């Protein structure tokens, strides 16, 4: 990323880098935790040796368990968390709305409809088609939302409203399908609550491509995104084309969200909690801390998934339950503190 520095405050920049570094350390720590704990206890040293490819690594079932079950799941949780947190932060600044979340423009409902279609229409290989269907559903819903709202960003509110309408419409069809296929109720329900149980290397590989690409795009335009907090005239005067920037930002964020949703279902609150938390610590508008937000989002979800795997063990707990259980009270706390400080 090229440095066209506009902040004449080196001290503050130092501080920001320190936070980013701390976030990376937290992520590393959390990933190691996620790999170390589970219903089966595996020797910690041997886990490290296996991961680093040193002699004395795990063998047999334990090795398979670590490398094919835990590792892809932890990485997928990290990717999904990073995607949701980053796109949440971007939506919030593009729409100048602190409550905007990654599922805003009908993504969630469209992806839900796609997932329900996959579950109700095919009999044998439901879960191999589900990611593709929900991805297409999510992207289609966003495109329809864009189309209906007409002039893209002439008025951000009209985009929000058409997102709500498209979302309701997709949800209506989804509910109808569920009513016609009662055997799909439980799989759809568990998908809506979010789940990483189906994680494997194939899912990790394709979701990594889209999510990392989208995050890279967002980070590379993050400095300009801060300009969107100004009025459009002021942004123009800074050499930013606000509408073009918004389109790129929303498309990249939607790609990340749709990929996350298709890999893991609807996991709520990450996209709101994490950006607000990081902003609260860094006191930055948003976008310069996008990398930090991505890493904290990843850490948050890896931790939440650790809870999903172990809290109710030997059963699984839907991860969306954990993120909302932690996220909702936290969100209220942030909201209250903001009001008090005003």
């Amino acid at each position: 990323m090229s440095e066209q520095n506009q902040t004449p405050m080196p001290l503050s920049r130092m501080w920001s880098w320190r936070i980013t570094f701390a976030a990376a350390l937290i992520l590393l720590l959390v990933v190691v935790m996620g790999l170390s704990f589970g219903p089966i206890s595996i020797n910690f040293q041997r886990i490290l040796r296996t991961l680093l490819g040193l002699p004395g690594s795990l063998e047999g079932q334990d090795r398979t368990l670590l490398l094919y079950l835990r590792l892809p799941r932890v990485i997928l949780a990290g990717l999904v968390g990073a995607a949701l947190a980053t796109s949440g932060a971007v939506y919030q600044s593009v729409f100048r709305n602190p409550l905007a979340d990654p599922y805003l423009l009908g993504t969630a409902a469209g992806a839900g409809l796609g997932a329900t279609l996959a579950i109700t229409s095919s009999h044998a290989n439901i879960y191999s088609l589900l990611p593709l269907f929900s991805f297409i559903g999510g992207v289609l819903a966003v495109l329809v939302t864009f189309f209906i709202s007409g002039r893209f960003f002439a008025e951000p509110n009209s985009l929000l409203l058409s997102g709500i309408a498209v979302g309701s419409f997709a949800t209506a069809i989804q509910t109808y399908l569920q009513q016609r296929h009662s055997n799909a109720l439980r799989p759809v329900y568990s998908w809506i609550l979010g789940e990483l149980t189906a994680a494997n290397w194939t899912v990790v590989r394709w979701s990594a491509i889209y999510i990392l690409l989208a995050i890279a795009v967002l980070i590379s335009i993050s400095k300009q995104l801060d300009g969107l907090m100004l009025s459009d005239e002021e942004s123009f005067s800074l050499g930013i084309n606000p509408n073009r920037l918004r389109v790129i930002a929303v498309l990249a964020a939607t790609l990340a969200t749709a990929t996350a949703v298709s890999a893991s279902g609807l996991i709520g609150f990450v996209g709101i909690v994490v950006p607000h938390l990081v902003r609260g610590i860094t006191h930055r508008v948003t976008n310069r801390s996008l990398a930090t937000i991505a890493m904290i989002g990843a850490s948050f979800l890896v931790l939440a998934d650790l809870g999903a795997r172990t809290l109710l063990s030997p059963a699984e707990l839907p991860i969306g339950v954990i993120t909302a259980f932690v996220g909702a009270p936290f969100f209220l706390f942030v909201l209250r503190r903001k009001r008090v400080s005003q």
Partner: protein
Amino acid sequence: MSRFTKSRSLIPIVAILLVPFTSSAHADAHTTIVKSGGFTTKLSAIPHRIISLSPTATENLFAIGAGPQVIAVDSLSNFPKNAPMSKLSAFTPNVEALAAKKPDLVILSVDSTNSGATRKALELLKIPVLMEKAPLQLADAYAEILAIGQATGKVVAAKAVIAKMKNAISRILASARKSTPISFFHELDSTLYSATSETFIGHVYSDFNLVNIADKAQGADASGYPQLSAEYLVTANPQIVFLADAQYGENMKTVSNRPGWSGIDAVKNVHVISLPDDIPSRWGPRLVDFYSFIAGAIKNIN
């Protein structure tokens, strides 16, 4: 084999964790191949550490004498009483928790959440999985008992159990089948979800020459469990009501208080029958008990 494209990632940890992987296949001369639930299971030896994640499979295992080979059953497998019930979930199985018990066979329901992913993960860990599917008719239920017999080395016993069931059920039907059809409503819950004649339980009622009022709503639900409207139910005027939700507090009194229900024949003649817990959804040897329960319940209704 390289399982990754080493792309430059924004999350450095991903790169650190990249490690080479190997996997090996293992074949044996004495393999038993069992087909069940639309899947094939290969077993290289008779399993002695079985985990059953299906109440029906648990009942089947114990009925054919494979009980001693079972080390754990799921949290809903409450029959027979000596089955080693555990906290394992049949709906949301956790692969690691299963592997921790070192099983040599896991019986998994096709209908459990993410059953495909669970099966693949267990097979990665070299744990054979026998898939079990909810039967649509008696023949499917018998096929499942046989499959479990094949998998556990108890084929003879399984065949004996099946023969005994067939015998008992045809004896019950010979004396209890109605000569003139009688209409009924099978209630799954108080919002009037029901089961058509295409479902397993629907077939049981048809065997007694009972006429299912839910069949008019056939096609409303792909798997045969439509929700009926209260108006339709009252005008259909079933002569018998079977309450599968009796264990959730519904009974003669609660249904007669529902608007319009006091005029239904079944309520007027007190032909509202509370079904026993569990048995209607256990498709193993206790099906005989279910058939004889229905026979007894409709004996004096004409």
